[in-house]
């Protein structure tokens, strides 16, 4: 697949890879906590085509994280279905994860809990390389990929900052040669200056390897920076979807408008974000 470096080339146009990518149709997820059933997802329909970079934005508690878990089979789907490359995603039970689904990898929000504190970086990257169907990049290449010094391989996670640990988590995910990378609020715990850099890094590594990415975040301005298409989620429902610039400049849904209006613009003008009812 020809790698187009220009940042906002629409991926769908040169979709030469086979397979239908990720499809969520009518996915509903309910939780029973202390006798009360609450619905986190009300019939979600979503898709991520191979090689595409898609965004999923929404405020806390809107169900973004549940969606990510449903895609990886970490949460049982009460109704509807998640399919990847034609294979239904079943909840990750006690069996090993099926081969095709191992192509979906995830980067999590909390860098401090993403790596096993008791094992060296090299061991954790080797485990990931083990399931790469093709020829997995070497540990050194992986560390170069995420702009970390090669000596990091022999260190323990506690010897790294939050930002560095997140880069290692990205390297581990890419080591498996995924065809779909899920970022579940991957930049939320990082310093502001790092957030855009790490988001751009994730886009670069997935684009170079031809993988697709679903980038989940509540920070719309960073999402706008890297995704071609995005979904807006509110209280368990998808309220809007479309090309990034289209949604950003002409939001149709009431909630999206309110969300976009409330983002403070760092232009030094001292204008308060508008509060739409």
């Amino acid at each position, binding site marked *: 697949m020809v790698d187009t470096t220009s940042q906002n080339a629409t991926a769908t146009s040169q979709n030469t890879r086979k397979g239908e990518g990720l499809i969520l149709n009518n996915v509903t997820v309910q939780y029973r906590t202390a006798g009360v059933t609450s619905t986190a997802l009300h019939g979600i329909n979503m898709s991520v085509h191979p090689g595409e970079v898609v965004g999923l934005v929404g405020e806390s508690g809107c169900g973004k994280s549940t969606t990510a878990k449903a895609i990886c089979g970490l949460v049982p789907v009460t109704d509807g279905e998640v399919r990847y490359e034609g294979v239904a995603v079943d909840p990750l039970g006690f069996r090993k994860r099926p081969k095709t689904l191992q192509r979906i990898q*995830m980067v999590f929000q909390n860098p401090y809990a993403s790596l*096993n504190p008791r094992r060296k970086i090299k*061991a954790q990257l080797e485990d990931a390389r083990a399931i790469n169907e093709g020829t997995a990049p070497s540990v050194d290449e992986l560390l170069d990929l995420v702009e970390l010094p090669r000596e990091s391989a022999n260190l323990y996670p506690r010897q790294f900052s939050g930002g560095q640990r997140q880069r290692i988590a990205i390297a581990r995910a890419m080591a498996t040669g995924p065809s779909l990378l899920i970022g579940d609020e991957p930049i939320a715990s990082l310093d502001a200056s790092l957030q855009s850099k790490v988001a751009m890094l994730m886009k670069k590594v997935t684009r170079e390897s031809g993988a697709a990415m679903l980038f989940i975040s509540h920070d719309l301005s960073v999402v706008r920076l890297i995704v071609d298409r995005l979904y807006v989620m509110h209280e368990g429902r998808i309220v809007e979807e479309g090309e990034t610039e289209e949604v950003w400049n002409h939001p149709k849904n009431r909630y999206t408008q309110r969300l976009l209006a409330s983002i403070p613009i760092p232009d030094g003008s001292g204008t308060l974000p508008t509060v739409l009812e």
Partner: protein
Amino acid sequence: MSEQPVSGLMPFAGLRRRLRDNGFLKSLRTPLGIIGVIFVAFWILMAIFGPLVEPYDPLAQEFDRLQAPNATNWFGTDQVGRDVFSRVIASARVTIPISVFIVVVSVCVGSFIGALAGYLGKVFDEIIMRLTDIMFAFPSIILAMIISATLGPGLKNAVIALLVVSWPSYARIVRSMVLTLKSSEFVIAGRLIGRGVLSSLIVDVLPNVLTSMLVLLFTDFGGAVLMLSNLSFLGLGVLPPDPDWGTMVQNGMGNFSAWWVALFPGLAILTLVISVNFIGDALQDSLDLQNVTSHA
């Protein structure tokens, strides 16, 4: 595609270095820590070199009965004329290894059951938790008393009773740890790269539970010594004539004026248990310190 050799399993190398890093050895240098180390060393030596140190045969009734502590019998003699000092030393050879055995076995059994309950969840977890709730419904000594009485008095049955009584608390602690670890990101990441349940438990979960288990081993050792002595005091543990601190104190019950019969075995229990607790506290403080720094 063979399973990667599990290199992370040798935790003790890492543990020694980590203990040195986070000042466990430094925290031992407090006055309490020093006292703790001295007494524990003393009792371990007594347990190992007991026969060489005992002046007389702990079982021989060769002295006048109920002699107050004097030059020949440093701790005096008991109601059947045995040397109390020799018996106190001899009892260390019984109580310490047995207590270590009880704590280690119940920690292992408890952790295994707790880990499975935490990891497998649902039905298995429910059964285990309800069972431990019921076991906790009895105050510990009373349940131990009932079990060892039913099995019949004797050290073997007392140990069984104490094992049955002790494993639930470890099962609960490990279960809650495993529950938090199971939902933590690095364990999920492990499952996502195809790690099976067992390998995930061994490689990702247990090494992170191990350090806390070691602290528990230390802090609960004292409890095991006390429980064993309690059972012996009730006549359900070590049977006469074998030397045991619990039974020796019970002998002192009969004749109050001979205060030495009960005093010295009790002092032995106290010094052993409190010194282990001093070390356990030092271990606990340094680990709390370590946990704080690792997530700063």
